[in-house]
């Protein structure tokens, strides 16, 4: 079973996961109304039902749900995502609350305006043209006061297509474990390479997926790695290569998640230890 076929039965949507994505992108499903936690739960149920973890699908799911979360948080908090990075979680929650209060305030104000509008709807104003004799007599002293460029711009506006919906959030992060596996295996043919080398110039998501691929190689017994110091270079070795096996590689615990933590932290910064 592939991810697109993952069937969801949510409050506001029922159908395959990929259709939900398409609807969100076309803004036919309001992301703000979508409980992403329910999507995650549905996926966990699905995993449980299968009884095994398909890394490929799992990666794809994590990437997509992360992109949705990011998109949703941007929608909810601010239009400038960069600013957000500096906000502490507590502050972010406060800001979210403040926005909810503001939205409520103006929603109530709009109810008041609608009442005014309804009350005034029976009132009409005269909009008859001026009597001809008055119109003729009025000289317009404003010759040349308008800029013809205004007209060209107005027409140009009409010629322009509306901006297309940005797919950047999802398309740039579409990296599969299989691709990264191929990449790493290519490097492994040399016997040894540094992790830095394997992910040079890549975005954060690709780096994370590369870590998954590395774990996969380790699981299959194709590679192991070592790191001399925190934040130091991570050297990846092919198991068949000349370097002798030196016992348990760092971070090699029966639990895969713990294995992942070491290189991931070292690489993504700040928390290694």
């Amino acid at each position, binding site marked *: 079973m592939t991810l697109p076929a993952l069937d969801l039965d949510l409050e506001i949507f029922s159908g395959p996961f990929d259709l939900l994505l398409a609807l969100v992108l076309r803004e036919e499903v309001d992301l703000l109304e979508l409980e992403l936690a329910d999507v995650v739960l549905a996926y966990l149920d699905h995993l449980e039902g299968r009884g095994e973890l398909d890394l490929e699908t799992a990666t794809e799911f994590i990437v997509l749900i992360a992109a949705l979360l990011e998109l949703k948080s941007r929608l909810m908090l601010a239009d400038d995502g960069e600013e957000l990075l500096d906000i502490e979680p507590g502050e972010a929650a406060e800001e979210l609350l403040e926005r909810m209060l503001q939205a409520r305030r103006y929603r109530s104000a709009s109810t008041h305006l609608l009442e005014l509008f309804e009350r005034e709807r029976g009132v009409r104003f005269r909009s008859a043209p001026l009597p001809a004799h008055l119109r003729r007599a009025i000289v*317009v002293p404003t010759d040349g006061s*308008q800029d013809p460029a205004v007209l*060209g*711009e*107005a027409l*140009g506006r*009409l010629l322009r297509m509306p901006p*297309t919906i940005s797919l950047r959030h999802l398309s740039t992060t579409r990296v599969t474990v299989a691709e990264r596996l191929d990449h790493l295996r290519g490097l492994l043919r040399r016997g040894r390479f540094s992790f830095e080398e394997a992910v040079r110039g890549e975005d954060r998501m690709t780096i994370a997926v590369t870590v998954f691929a590395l774990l996969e190689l380790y699981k299959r017994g194709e590679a192991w790695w070592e790191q001399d110091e925190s934040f130091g270079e991570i050297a990846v070795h092919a198991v068949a290569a000349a370097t002798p096996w030196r016992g348990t590689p760092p971070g090699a615990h029966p639990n895969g998640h713990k294995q992942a933590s070491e290189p991931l932290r070292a690489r993504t910064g700040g928390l290694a230890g």
Partner: protein
Amino acid sequence: MRATSREAEPEDAESVAAVASAPAIEGLPEPDSVTVRVIEALLFLAPDPLSPQELADAAAADELTVIAALAELAERYAPGRSGIHLRELGGGFTFSSDPLAEDAARRLLSRPRASALTPAQAETLAIVAYLQPVSRPEIARIRGVSADSAASMLLERGLVEESGRSQFGAVLYRTTTQFLKLFGLRSLEELPDVAEWDPTPEEQAELRE
């Protein structure tokens, strides 16, 4: 009755009052004040003269009551009493301003009032300027939204005018001399080249993606 009123100086509101109130002697119904107020409001709103028949239909009153209401209004809106006059014109009734106010009106209305075009007006005017003659439905199709209020304002401001009818019967519009004057153009040839505002090549490439 209409013929009589025309012969007796149709432009003079006093004659309207005289004519309309004449049948009162013959026992017109006393109009209720609500009907009078409705007729008054209708005359105020309508840009063109309204016949008693039209007023009766709209106010859901009978024509005799309407005539009685008109008589009452003619008395109130009479020269010397009010700055608004009730007049009978071409078989219909209409309010007009007191000629006394003509100079003041000229001073008031000739003053360049806030005259920047709204975006909707600019778009509509641009379409008429470049594509004339062009019909209202066509303008709406190009803009994607109705152009009715913008087109009315442009007509009102004397920037566009009607220019015959399309083969499907829709009124066609073209720009006026006034438009050229306002924009400081000698002729339509002087309108800026539209290509200047076409999407840039980069934008086009982006659009194709």
